[in-house]
């Protein structure tokens, strides 16, 4: 798999590094992220590589643990969106007819809600925690995937190899899962990658507003929330998590775009 | 008899990833004025690449080596602007697919008229007049009316006639026909071949069907895997092929058509 695209290569490296750092956080982090170590805010020093926050907690450790949270939210949210989206899109696209009409109108309704408000509304009604953040983000971002998958199914079900499968006696289930779905992976993968970028941003926004991951569990978003009052005095409190968010999102975009280019003129 | 086209040691290489695809390798081919010369070969042999090279329609990353001498000049050395004058005026081409070689959003008359407006600077009225004449020449009924129609309103066979009209518009010295009947029904095939014969233009006729080529052409080149493997008069090629590939082409055709031919 040649990654001639320099940006994509760069993105992939960053992504891998972030993921490894997130997984190995308990091993790499120098300190406990909740441990109050100092009496006052420390600027970045050798002891605290990224400085400390207003409560004296080491930012490097927090940002590593925060990465675990943010990245796992992204992955699970996208998995939720994929599951719902693929199921709905496949059924709609494959069976067509009235079923397709109904499902698509429902999808349109969901799409016309400004999702961020929907999420805020739901989260404010529940007790926000990491789990419902994952589900809520996933449950409000499946629509694009459903449309995509429906489009792929509409096109692919007319292809001759699908007709051939029908001719040898394949059942609808077999055709959907063994024949059509494997051939529609390309746009799904692209959507998933870009979806993860979106999920990271959404989770950050939610946590920043206090409706996402609750303190003391660190997430990049709630670290930003804490940093608000100290922007001038201790800018590193905001810059570090912000930088990590940007790196994660950008690298996902680069990889996603490269995948889209590469997988597009297929075969 | 003027030697119109002389291809000397032509090679066309495409650069793909980390290897070089030699689409055309060391090809030599001549077309004299007044001849209908055939080029026969199967899929992937490079015949279309050869045709496109003559018209210099090969895009990078393709590299061309050798010479394509047209009436003395090497076409590979001239400026693109000069080549544009050659295309359409001196050498023109009829392509295989009548469905994609015409622009779907322009009227058929417009597309033919454009040839005159571009090459001769003719006025709109004059060029439309010429377009209608050409449509009549290729036996399209009600040519004036039909000129106002769009490509999708024509059948495949008729679209091919329109392509022939466009190619013939400037009375070119050489017409290259690249599998002009392959995408058409059998009955249309015959009609288009008759039409091409009627025009009496010097032609390079390219096809994978040896019978079609033999029926139309006086001389035949046989191409395989980028190379010319045999050359001769149609009678020689059909009756006493020297190259094993040529022999295979002829025998395959004969095998399927032997009984049919016997009953004619």
């Amino acid at each position, binding site marked *: 798999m040649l990654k001639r695209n320099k940006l994509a290569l760069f993105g992939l490296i960053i992504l891998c590094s972030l993921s490894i750092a997130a997984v190995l956080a308990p091993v790499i982090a120098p300190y406990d992220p909740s441990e109050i170590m100092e009496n006052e805010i420390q600027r970045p020093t050798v002891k605290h590589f990224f400085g400390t926050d207003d409560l004296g907690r080491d930012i490097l450790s927090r940002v590593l643990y925060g990465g675990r949270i943010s990245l796992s939210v992204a992955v699970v949210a996208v998995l939720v969106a994929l599951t719902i989206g693929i199921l709905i899109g496949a059924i709609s696209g494959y069976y067509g007819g009235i079923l397709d009409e109904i499902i698509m109108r429902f999808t349109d309704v969901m799409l016309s809600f400004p999702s961020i408000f929907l999420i805020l509304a739901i989260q404010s009604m529940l007790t926000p925690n990491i789990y419902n953040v994952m589900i809520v983000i996933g449950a409000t971002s499946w629509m694009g995937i459903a449309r995509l998958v429906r489009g792929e199914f509409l096109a692919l079900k007319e292809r001759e190899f699908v007709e051939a499968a029908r*001719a040898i006696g394949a059942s609808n289930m077999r055709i959907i899962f063994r024949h059509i779905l494997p051939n529609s992976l390309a746009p799904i993968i692209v959507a998933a990658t870009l979806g993860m970028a979106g999920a990271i941003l959404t989770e950050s926004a939610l946590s920043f507003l206090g409706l996402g991951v609750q303190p003391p569990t660190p997430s990049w978003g709630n670290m930003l929330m804490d940093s608000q009052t100290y922007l001038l005095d201790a800018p590193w409190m905001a810059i570090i998590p912000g930088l990590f968010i940007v790196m994660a999102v950008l690298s996902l975009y680069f990889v996603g775009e490269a995948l889209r280019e590469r997988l597009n003129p297929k075969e | 008899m003027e030697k119109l086209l002389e291809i000397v040691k032509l090679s066309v290489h495409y650069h793909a990833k980390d290897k070089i695809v030699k689409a055309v390798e060391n090809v030599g081919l001549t077309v004299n004025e007044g001849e209908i010369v055939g080029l026969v070969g199967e899929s992937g042999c490079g015949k279309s690449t050869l045709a496109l090279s003559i018209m210099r329609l090969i895009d990078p990353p393709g590299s061309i080596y050798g010479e394509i001498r047209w009436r003395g000049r090497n076409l590979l050395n001239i400026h693109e602007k000069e080549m544009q004058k050659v295309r359409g005026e001196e050498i023109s081409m009829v392509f295989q697919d009548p469905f994609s070689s015409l622009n779907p959003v322009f009227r058929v008359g417009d597309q033919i008229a454009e040839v005159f407006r571009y090459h001769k600077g003719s006025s709109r009225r004059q060029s439309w007049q010429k377009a209608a004449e050409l449509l009549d020449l290729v036996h399209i009924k009600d040519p004036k009316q039909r000129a106002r129609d769009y490509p999708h309103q024509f059948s495949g066979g008729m679209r091919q006639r329109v392509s022939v009209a466009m190619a013939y518009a400037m009375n070119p010295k050489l017409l290259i026909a690249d599998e002009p009947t392959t995408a058409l029904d059998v009955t249309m095939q015959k009609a288009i071949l008759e039409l091409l014969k009627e025009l009496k233009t010097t032609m390079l006729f390219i096809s994978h069907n040896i019978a079609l080529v033999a029926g139309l052409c006086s001389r035949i080149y046989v191409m395989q895997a980028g190379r010319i493997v045999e050359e001769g008069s149609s009678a020689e090629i059909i009756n006493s092929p020297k190259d094993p590939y040529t022999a295979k082409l002829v025998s395959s055709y*004969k095998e399927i*058509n032997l009984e049919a031919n016997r009953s004619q």
Partner: protein
Amino acid sequence: MKLIEVNSVSKQFGHVKALDDVNFHVEKGESFGLVGESGSGKTTLARIILKLITASEGEIVYEGGFSRKDYQIVFQNPWTSLNPRMKIKAILKEPLDIHGVKKDVVQLLRDVELDESYLGKFPHELSGGERQRIGIARAISIEPKFIVLDEPVSSLDMTVQVGVLKLLKDLRSRLNLTLLFIAHDLSVIRYMCDRVAVMRSGNIVETGSVTEVYKDPQHSYTKLLLESIPKL
């Protein structure tokens, strides 16, 4: 004995009448040809016979009833009729799994003159002729009674066509198959078939034994088709 009987079948797609009151039958064991150009309706007819689409009017009677196991098809386009993401082994195993037929896929490959090295390959690694052979292997694997061959060699080079046609002839006699052979080329039909029906614009204009139709064509369209065959 008639294996299938097509009775007054018509098919309408919106305004277009693709098939208009088509009647013919295919005897068990024979190779029946259906010849016509584009728009003749032959492809639509093939799909109706295989219940891939439904007729607007009329019916088809199948001796012993219809089942996917007994009635199979080989498609025209070797580039689109095989799933590009499935290996050859999986493509060949699928019909066997669906119908519970136990067969050795290597033997299937040998039946179509290919060796076992093809099992691990993907369709795009095979040539057109090889792909058609896989399509044929897939169709015969579950031992059908009847196979529709929808222009099986039209997309292939002539030097490759002969090989595939010979294979089909051989398989037909060995496996006692009944064939419906669809083509636009009368010479190929002559080579492969016993009887032929000539179609034009959704109608059958002439039927008869291949020898009769060739020697003494009755309909003007049949004559036109015969004349259009380029002679060497």
